[in-house]
C-alpha cells in the first residue's frame, strides 16, 4: 500500500499496463520529455522508449486520428489531450470515427482506445482550461465516458478503460489531481465501467455526483449530519456513460429525495438525465422534487471568479435542506 495522489495513481496504472502489455502506447503533445503538463506520464519515455511514449506534433485531431489507426493495427493507444477545452479540436475524429467504426464495419474494426484529458475547473487556469464537457461526450453513443473522483478509483478505472474493447473518454478532474492522497493497493485493480458506488450511506436523501465534486458533496453530507440531523447518502457515479441508473433508483427508492451535483452547465447536463431516470423509475417514491446543484448555463467565469460558479459544499447543503423541507 502506498499513499498516492491521483496524478501518481494514474501514472502507476499506465506504468503497470505498459509493462504487462506491449500493445499499450501513450501518445500526445508533451507526454515524453516533459512527462505531461500535469506529470501523469512521468518516467514513461525513460522506461518504455520513444516508440511507446510518443511526443506528437501539436495537433489534437492527429493525436486522436492516429490513435484510431493504431488501434486498427492491434495497439491499445492511450491518447492524451492537454485540456478538455482543447478536445474540440479533435471532436470530429471522436464523433465521426472513433465512436462509429464498430457499427460502421459491423464489428470488423473497433477502437479500443482511451482519450485521456484533464477535466473541470478549480485550478485557477486561463480560459479553455476549466470546462466540464462530459454531457457533450455522453451524448455520443459508442463512447464510454468515465470520471474518477480519487486516486484509487482513478488507477483502477484507467486500467479498465485501457483494457475496454470500446473507446473511452477518460476525464481526469484537475481539482482532484493533487488535492489529496489515498491508499492505493500494490496489486493492480480494475473497476467496472458503467457502475457507480455508494460513497457514503444514508437514509434521508440521495446526493448524486461524480468527479471533483464528490469531496465537497461528502463534506456537505457531514455538515448535514452534524448540524441538521439529515443523513445523506452520497453516490459517486464514476461513469456518466453508461450511467448506473440501477444504483441511482435503488438509493432514491430508499431515501425518497435526491439532489444532483455537477460542475458542468445545468441545461441538458448529466443531471437532467439522472432526473429523468428517477422520474421514469421512482416517481411514486419521491417526497420532493429533485434538485440540481450545478454550474450555470453560462461560460464558466475566468478563474478569479470560478469558485462562484463551481458548486460548493455550502450550495449542496442549502439545496438539500430545501429538499428536506418540501
Amino acid at each position, binding site marked *: 500500500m502506498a499513499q498516492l495522489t491521483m496524478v501518481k495513481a494514474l501514472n502507476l496504472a499506465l506504468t503497470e499496463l505498459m509493462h504487462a502489455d506491449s500493445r499499450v502506447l501513450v501518445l500526445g503533445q508533451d507526454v515524453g520529455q516533459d512527462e505531461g503538463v500535469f506529470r501523469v506520464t512521468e518516467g514513461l519515455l525513460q522506461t518504455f522508449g520513444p516508440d511507446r511514449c510518443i511526443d506528437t506534433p501539436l495537433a489534437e485531431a492527429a493525436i486522436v486520428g492516429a490513435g484510431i489507426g493504431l488501434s486498427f493495427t492491434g495497439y491499445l493507444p492511450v491518447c492524451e489531450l492537454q485540456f478538455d477545452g482543447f478536445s474540440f479540436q479533435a471532436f*470530429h475524429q471522436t464523433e465521426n*470515427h472513433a465512436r462509429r467504426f*464498430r457499427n460502421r464495419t459491423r464489428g470488423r474494426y473497433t477502437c479500443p482506445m482511451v482519450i485521456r484529458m484533464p477535466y473541470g475547473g478549480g485550478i485557477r487556469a486561463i480560459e479553455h482550461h476549466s470546462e466540464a464537457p462530459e454531457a457533450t461526450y455522453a451524448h455520443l453513443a459508442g463512447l464510454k465516458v468515465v470520471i474518477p473522483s480519487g486516486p484509487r478509483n482513478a488507477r483502477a478505472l484507467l486500467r479498465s478503460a485501457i483494457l475496454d474493447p470500446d473507446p473511452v473518454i477518460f476525464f481526469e478532474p484537475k481539482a482532484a489531481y493533487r488535492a489529496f492522497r489515498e491508499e492505493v493497493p500494490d496489486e493492480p485493480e480494475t473497476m467496472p465501467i458503467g457502475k457507480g458506488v455508494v460513497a457514503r450511506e444514508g437514509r434521508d436523501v440521495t446526493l448524486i455526483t461524480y468527479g471533483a465534486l464528490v469531496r465537497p458533496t461528502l463534506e456537505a453530507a457531514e455538515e448535514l449530519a452534524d448540524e441538521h440531523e439529515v443523513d445523506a447518502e452520497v453516490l459517486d457515479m464514476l461513469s456518466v456513460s453508461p*450511467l448506473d441508473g440501477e444504483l441511482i433508483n435503488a438509493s432514491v427508492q430508499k431515501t425518497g429525495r435526491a439532489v444532483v451535483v455537477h460542475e458542468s452547465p445545468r441545461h441538458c447536463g448529466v443531471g437532467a438525465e439522472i432526473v429523468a431516470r428517477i422520474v421514469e423509475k421512482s416517481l411514486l417514491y419521491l417526497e420532493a422534487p429533485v434538485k440540481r446543484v450545478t454550474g450555470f448555463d453560462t461560460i464558466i467565469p475566468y478563474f478569479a471568479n470560478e469558485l462562484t460558479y463551481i458548486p460548493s459544499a455550502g450550495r449542496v447543503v442549502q439545496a438539500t435542506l430545501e429538499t428536506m423541507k418540501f
Partner: protein
Amino acid sequence: MPRETISIPQKLESLSVLAPDGKLDTDLEPHIPDDDLRRLYRCMLTARRLDERCLMLQRQGRIGTFGPSKGQEATPLGVAYTLNPDDWHVPTFRETAGQLWRGWPIDTMMLFWGGHEAGNAVPGNVNDLPTAVPIASQCQYAMGISWGLKLKGNQQVCAVYCGDGGTSEGDFHEALNLAGVQNLPLIMVVQNNHWAISIPRSAQTRSQTIAQKAVAYGIDGVQVDGNDILAVIVALREAIEKARTGGGPTLIEAVTYRLSMHTTADDPKKYRTDEEVSEWEPRDPLPRFQRYLQRKKLLDEQLEQELDAEIKAELDEAVRKYEAYKFDPTDFFNHMYAELTPELREQMQELRAYLGQIQSAD
C-alpha cells in the same frame, strides 16, 4: 549576408506514360503481365458499368443518393493493383474501381448506396477500410495505421485517398505533417478531379500544384496523370517500394476529372460549362486503356462482347442479391459496444415490442 536563397532539397516531378492520344513512353512503361492487363481492363470496365447501373437504380428510386466515379477509375485501380492484399487501402468515396480490385462484392457496394451498414462489410482477406464520408478525416486514421505498421516493422504500407477539396481541410495537413515527422509508410493519393461539388480547384488553393504541398512537410511529392493507369502504377510502385524500405511517405497528386455529377443530388450544369467537360472527355481513362490493350492484341471485338455480357450478368446478379437483402430492423443496436449496455437492451426491447405490436395489428 542579410538575404539568401533557401535551397530546398526536394524535386517535384510530373509523370505520364500513356498520353490521351495513345502515345506511349516506352522507357517508363511499367511491366505488367498480360493476364493482369486483361483483368485490370475488366475491372475498370466493371466499375464504369456499375456506375451507370447505380445511376439508373438511383433514378428509379432503388438506391439512395449516389456519387458516381465516372472518369476516375484509373487512379484507384492503379493504386489497388500495386498494393499487396495485406497492405492497407483507405478509400474516401470515389474509389469504386480500387475496391472492386480488392475484392469488394458488387452487391455489398450497392448495399452501401442502398442505405445499409452491411454495405461497409469489409471482405475478409484484405486490410481495407470502408467508404469515408466526412472530407479528409480518413487521412488521420490512415496515418495512424501506417504508424502501427512502422512500429510492427512488417514492411506493410497504407494508401489513403482524398480529393482536391480535401486538401483544404486541416486533417490532410496534420496527417501529412505527422507522417513526415515519424517517417511513416503512408501513400497519400489526392484525386484532383478539379471540382469539390461546385468549388473549382482554383478556389481551393493558390498553389500551382497540389503535389508541391509535400515540400512543406519535407516529404516527396509527385504529380501524375490520374487518367493514365500506367503512370499511376509507376508512381505507386516507386512510392510503395520507398515506404516499405523505410523511406517514408509520399504525396501523389493524381490529376483527373469528374466527368459526372458530385452526387445525384446536384446538377453540374449549374457550376461548370459543357465545353469544359467535353475537353476532358478525350482524356477518359477507359478508352485510353482499351486502345493500349488493343494495340497489344490483348483485346479484340469478340473478347469485348464476351466481357460486356459477363459484366452485365454479374451486375444483374448483384442487383438481385442486393434487392433480396433482408435485415433485422433492430440490429442497429448491436454494434454500438462490444456488449449491449443495460440502457440499449431496454431501448431495443421497447422498439421490438412496438414493432411486434404494429406487425400484429397488420
